[in-house]
């Protein structure tokens, strides 16, 4: 009986080689359509996946978005250039600094202003600290999704300090609007860089705890290895970026390959590496590989922060800009490496005070599209692991 059913399953279906016998699919049941979400803790926001199941097997999946659609792109056409900045905080609210940065770089590409060196270095420090914070949430809540509560608390312990650091520099804990067009809002308070250096020291000591507690934990490995495999070809075809594409074994990082700000200089100094998954625990491109990339990236971010602290210079932190900004006519696309992938801003100006078009290419939106293809053939329990491993922030998929 079991063999018969296996034959009718889609070719992507597999009983795990290491686990054959643990899962027995014996009776074909009538198809059942279930709504996963919109209010489900594992969707990390308000998203609904309509799943067709045959017993424990997912045979079809259809993500439904839009519950958190706040018309960011329409707002962009109705407010002035500088006024739009706080809205960028609100698409990927776990990496607001990076969103501010992406938008500022896109507008600066049209303006052609020169950014003071000190501002650039502070920008990189903030972006990388925010990347660490974002990966901590991604990794911690991923453990939570698949049943490990404790590592989540360890992750939030360090994230709390990171947020306190941001509170000191800009007054906000989540929606910063700190990186502005032309530079950053204000200079770091006295002692801030020293505290960042202390944070780096402590983080380096704490980091092995995540690896020991969760990443190489046997239960975790069994839940994630060989699950939700995304092949290289699929990753390219679906336009996946960031940790998703590195998790599939493709060596690609915008910070190194298309450097912006002074990442090129940091890379040439040999200060950081790009972790690329090798399929150590199972097939290349599975859920474990993606979380491995995130954990390894945190340490590389620490190295980048250290480099910036060592090369910090004195000077102004914001370029000379008029209060009412008029952006030269033209159009520019700037993509930066967000924690979730390539965050692209496509801005069009007609020379006025308001943009003609502000397009946001959210990495979560593009990464989520792959669900329709990798969920069918998985078990319902694994579906949670797969959705969690794509590390979506619904604020960004819906914008």
């Amino acid at each position, binding site marked *: 009986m079991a063999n018969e059913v296996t034959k009718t399953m889609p070719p992507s279906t597999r009983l795990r080689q290491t686990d054959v016998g643990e899962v027995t699919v014996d009776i074909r049941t009538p198809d059942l359509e279930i709504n996963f979400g919109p209010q489900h803790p594992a969707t990390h926001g308000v998203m609904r996946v309509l799943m067709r199941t045959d017993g424990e097997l997912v045979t079809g999946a259809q993500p439904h978005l839009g519950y958190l659609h706040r018309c960011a792109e329409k707002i962009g056409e109705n407010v002035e250039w500088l006024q739009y900045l706080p809205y960028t905080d609100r698409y990927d609210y776990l990496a607001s600094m990076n969103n501010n940065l992406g938008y500022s770089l896109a507008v600066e590409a049209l303006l052609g202003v020169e950014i003071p060196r000190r501002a650039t270095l502070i920008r990189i420090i903030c972006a990388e600290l925010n990347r660490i914070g974002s990966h901590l949430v991604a990794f911690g809540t991923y453990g939570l999704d698949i049943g490990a509560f404790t590592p989540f608390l360890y992750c939030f312990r360090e994230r709390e300090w990171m947020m306190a650091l941001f509170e000191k520099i800009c007054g906000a804990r989540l929606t910063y609007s700190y990186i502005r067009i032309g530079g950053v809002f204000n200079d770091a308070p006295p002692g801030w860089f020293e505290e960042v250096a202390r944070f780096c020291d402590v983080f380096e000591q704490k980091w092995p705890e995540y690896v020991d507690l969760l990443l190489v934990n046997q239960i975790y490995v069994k839940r994630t290895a060989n699950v939700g495999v995304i092949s290289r070809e699929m990753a390219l075809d679906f336009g996946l970026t960031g940790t998703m594409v590195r998790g599939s074994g493709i060596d690609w990082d915008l910070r190194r390959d298309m450097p912006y700000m002074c990442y090129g200089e940091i890379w040439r100094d040999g200060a950081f590496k790009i972790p690329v998954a090798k399929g150590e625990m199972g097939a290349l491109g599975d859920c474990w590989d993606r979380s491995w990339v995130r954990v390894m990236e945190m340490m590389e971010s620490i190295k980048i922060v250290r480099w910036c602290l060592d090369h910090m210079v004195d000077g102004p932190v914001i370029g000379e800009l008029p209060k009412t900004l008029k952006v030269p006519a033209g159009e520019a696309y700037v993509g930066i490496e967000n924690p979730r992938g390539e965050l692209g801003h496509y801005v069009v100006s007609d020379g006025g005070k308001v943009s*003609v078009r502000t397009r946001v290419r959210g990495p979560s939106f593009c990464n989520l599209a792959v669900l329709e293809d990798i969920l069918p053939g998985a078990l319902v329990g694994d579906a949670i692991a797969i959705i969690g491993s794509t590390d979506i922030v619904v604020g960004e998929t819906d914008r």
Partner: protein
Amino acid sequence: MDFQGILDRLVAIRAPGLVKADEPRKPDPKDKKDKGRAGDPFVIVEPALLASFVEACRDDDRLHFEQLVDLTATDPSKDSADLWINVQLLSLKFRHRLAIKALLPKSAAKLPSLVPVYRASQWHERECAEMFGIVFEGHPDPRNILLPDDWVGSPLRKDYEFPKEYHGISCE
């Protein structure tokens, strides 16, 4: 490859539908009305041949655009007769990008879908379709993605009028 190199290659392989290149330029000092153009260079392509054009870009071994990063549309102004389709391609192998623009008449906002070439464009096209009222012919799943299924109008068109109510809920 820089933009000029990509352009030369596109001409050499006779990429279908290539109209011309548009590069940023400084304002003309003699003409006071001329504002110039800032930003990135891009190529202009016939909308009906856009799918064949990106396919040629993907398959050529010197261009090698493996990824479609972004596909979106722009309504430049109320008076404009055209919508723009904006596509961003990326080559991981050669580390270069190409921005493509297709001018699509508002009176016949239709073009072939790019999904057979890049699966990545599937959701981008759905978003474009609902926000700008563009029809992508041959799209496998042409439902709304961010808006409700019964939404009326194309919100990102410049002539869009905000609704006064939605299902009896006042929006004013």
